[in-house]
């Protein structure tokens, strides 16, 4: 087994350093609002991190390329699953608008849920009413 590639320690430490750095970046960026780019940035950084883990920690960079193919294939099929499902869920109501969204947007059991404070304790009737009015103005 000795002929297997042994990665130098420095590489591993550098990889871990990069991962910590990218984690910091993605958290820092999340404090700013870029609108719909929030998702793109977060996913971009995550994908970068994931690729680094796969290539260095999981040795795909040095391995038999069959293993890489296997991994890429899993992502490809996941991609197919997501995209093709979105072709339906994202485009309902294209011809008949009734079909687009559910009849009730809120599940029935919410009607019996009391409003709570941030600790999950029900707030009293009076302020609940008050809160309800508040919501109407939104």
């Amino acid at each position, binding site marked *: 087994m000795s002929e297997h590639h042994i990665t130098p320690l420095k590489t591993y430490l550098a990889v871990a350093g990069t991962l910590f750095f990218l984690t910091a970046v993605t958290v820092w960026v999340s404090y700013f609002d870029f609108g719909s780019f929030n998702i793109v940035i977060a996913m971009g*950084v995550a994908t970068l*991190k994931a690729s680094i883990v*796969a290539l260095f920690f999981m040795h795909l960079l040095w391995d038999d390329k*069959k293993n890489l193919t296997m991994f890429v294939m*899993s992502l490809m099929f996941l991609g197919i699953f*997501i995209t093709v499902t979105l072709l339906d869920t994202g485009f309902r109501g294209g011809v008949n608008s009734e079909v687009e969204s559910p009849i009730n947007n809120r599940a029935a059991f919410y009607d019996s849920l009391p409003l709570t404070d941030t600790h999950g304790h029900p707030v009293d009737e009076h302020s609940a009413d008050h809160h309800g009015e508040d919501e109407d103005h939104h």
Partner: protein
Amino acid sequence: MSHDNSSPKFLQHHFHDVEQQYETAKLGMWAFILTEVLTFGGLFVAYVVYRSWYPEMFVGANLLLDVNKGLLNTIVLITSSLTMVLAVWAIQKKNQKLSLFMLIATFLFAFMFLGIKYLEYSHKFEVGQLPGEYYSYMGPEIAHLNNPHIFFSIYFIMTGLHGLHVAIGMGLIAWLIYATAKGNLNSEYYTPMEMIGIFWHLVDLIWIYLFPLFYLI
């Protein structure tokens, strides 16, 4: 039908040589990783679809999660990935003691991850941010949004399944610690350690996605 005396005892009878056995194990492991990715994949699809249907609710609900704990867990898990890879590195370098130390560290980090997860979960349980019909949290941040229970269902299922993988990983690492301490794994034969390492990095890799999806955006 027996092998000649030169072949090592860990070589199974149906393989030609150690190289073939190692490569086969690795390919099998990657096929397994593929199935893992697609198992989580189903949940990612659920996430994407519901996020596209309830964008405001998702943004509102993920503000209820504790970013600090999530960040801490990310750091813990990346560190454990590093110690895992160093355990393999050490055994390749014939340093069994260091390898053992790194495995124990990995185990402890995994334990820490679950501990932090437990704190997070218990807080959610207290305030009623539960999955599905058990959901009861109607705090002012969320009361006006539709169906936040779906967000928490997906959150609990994804992090729960991930947590289950961490727990399984801990079991496997515990076995590695035992096998390394006994000397069954050494610089000649450490395939199980490398395979479990790959599994462990996958657990890390999935968390790399879960963290921003639930805590940040």
